[in-house]
């Protein structure tokens, strides 16, 4: 079985349907957005609207700003010009508590998966539950299933620094989806894993997308994009010359 029989994710289905009912609402809306770290503009004049349930890939040369773009999409960075609206609300008007709420609705797999090194892998995966005040003990079964699906059962009690690169990425993905978020942003989620594991990670993301979740994956891996295109209607965005373009059918 490829997809985790994860009740935590399945239980979110009614909520997602409610989201879909709000026709025309965008989960992420970028409007003439630009970003600069202080030097010249890294990203310019970017407009994009993500509808609930869409599936996107984000590509571009190294250093083109993919990670930066994703950070703008989950409120870690505030655009230097233009607007970024998450769930209809402008990031610029959010206080830190609202950003925290956004993080619970947006699961992020970071390129440099950061964990709390003094907690076990299982505790790290459960961390979003813990910080949002959910009863971790009550979700024990879901947690176990998710850990098992990611192939981390035998490493569940290990500490993050003891994991391999691929194990870290699997743990990061598990942590990103445990809250059953509306949006999943994955930054090079298959950078360190073999093809079989890439396939499994992709399958999870595709399955989550089928349940109505919006997915965006930043990757260099053209093979992964091709594999996804056979299963899901995925659009490919490309960052080139500071702009965001919709890549053609050449992939």
């Amino acid at each position, binding site marked *: 079985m490829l997809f985790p029989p994860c009740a935590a994710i399945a239980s979110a289905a009614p909520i997602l349907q409610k989201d879909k009912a709000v026709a025309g609402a965008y989960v992420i809306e970028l409007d003439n957005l630009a970003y600069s770290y202080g030097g010249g503009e890294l990203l310019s004049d970017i407009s994009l609207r993500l509808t609930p349930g869409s599936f996107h890939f984000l590509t571009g040369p190294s250093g083109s700003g993919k990670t930066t773009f994703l950070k703008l999409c989950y409120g870690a960075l505030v655009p230097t010009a233009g607007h970024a609206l998450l769930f209809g609300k402008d990031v610029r008007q959010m206080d830190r*508590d609202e950003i925290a709420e956004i*993080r619970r609705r947006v699961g992020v797999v970071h390129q440099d998966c950061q964990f709390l090194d003094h907690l076990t892998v299982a505790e790290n995966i459960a961390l*979003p539950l813990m910080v*949002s005040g959910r009863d971790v003990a009550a979700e024990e079964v879901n947690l176990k299933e998710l850990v098992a699906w990611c192939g981390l059962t035998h490493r569940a009690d290990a500490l993050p620094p003891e994991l391999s690169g691929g194990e870290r990425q699997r743990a990061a993905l598990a942590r990103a989806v445990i809250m059953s978020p509306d949006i999943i942003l994955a930054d090079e989620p298959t950078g360190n894993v073999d093809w079989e594991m890439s396939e499994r990670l992709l399958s999870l993301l595709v399955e989550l997308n089928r349940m109505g979740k919006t997915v965006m994956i930043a990757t260099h891996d053209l093979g992964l994009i091709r594999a996804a295109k056979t299963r899901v209607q995925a659009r490919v965005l490309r960052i080139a010359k500071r702009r965001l373009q919709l890549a053609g059918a050449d992939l």
Partner: protein
Amino acid sequence: MKLLSPAVLLRGEPQADRVVPPTGFTARLTLFAAAAMTFLAVFALALSLATGRLASNWSEELARSSTLRISAPAEQIAAQTEAALQVLATTGGVARARALSREEQQALLEPWFGPDLPVDSLPIPQLIEIIEDAQGYDPDGLRLRLAAEVPGAVLDDHGRWRRPLVKAAGRIRSLGLLSLLLIGAVMGAMITLAANSALAANAQVIAVLRLVGARDDFIARAFVRRFTFRAFWGAVLGMGLGLAALLALPEAQAEGGFLTGLGLRGWHWVWPFVLPPVAAMVSFLATGGAARRMLRRLA
């Protein structure tokens, strides 16, 4: 921020607190600061309470008594004493007046001159003890009357030397209370430093917690609870040591008169037990402030 319940204080809140890694150095610093400061606070407290007791003893007991001294040639002493007692009997505010017997006078002099002093052969003035009633008498009026009727009488109303002593005791007491405040402030400052250092050392942890959706409140609470918990138990330790040291003090002798020991008396023993909750409160406020400032800065 939600207030900490005492139960949470005592057992911590294991699940949420574990998100902050144990930090040996700041833990020890907090524990040490709380223990040392509470130890000192026990003594400042004992000092304040003892001087308070002293001051009230002096003003209460001594205010009610004064002494009339009659110095006259030996053959006139008896007559003048009689006259003085007459005057006192008719003075408003005097409850009782009594001439001290020879034995009593000898007992009073004994500490200074030894038991072998031949009191009989010395021209020792006669002492009359005056006990005031609640209103008290007017010392100046009494002096005028005595000057007219008993030329050899000198009234010593004790106020002259008692008042500066009571005032000094009052000052010592305020110094003790000031010390308590300073001790609390220093403890708060040290715990703030420890908390700041812990927060700074855990910037990475805070970043990860924020990435997974932790609110400032959650992060601050994890730190605050930990420091409050440590400060409380550190203070309990310091209080225990302070009380043990007080108990080990030699008992002040009852015959010490108005001198009184530094130890605690009666229900005053309750006061030191107030210190650990106060230390926990100081730590709660200090770390809460530090955490909120630091979290704003790390935003």
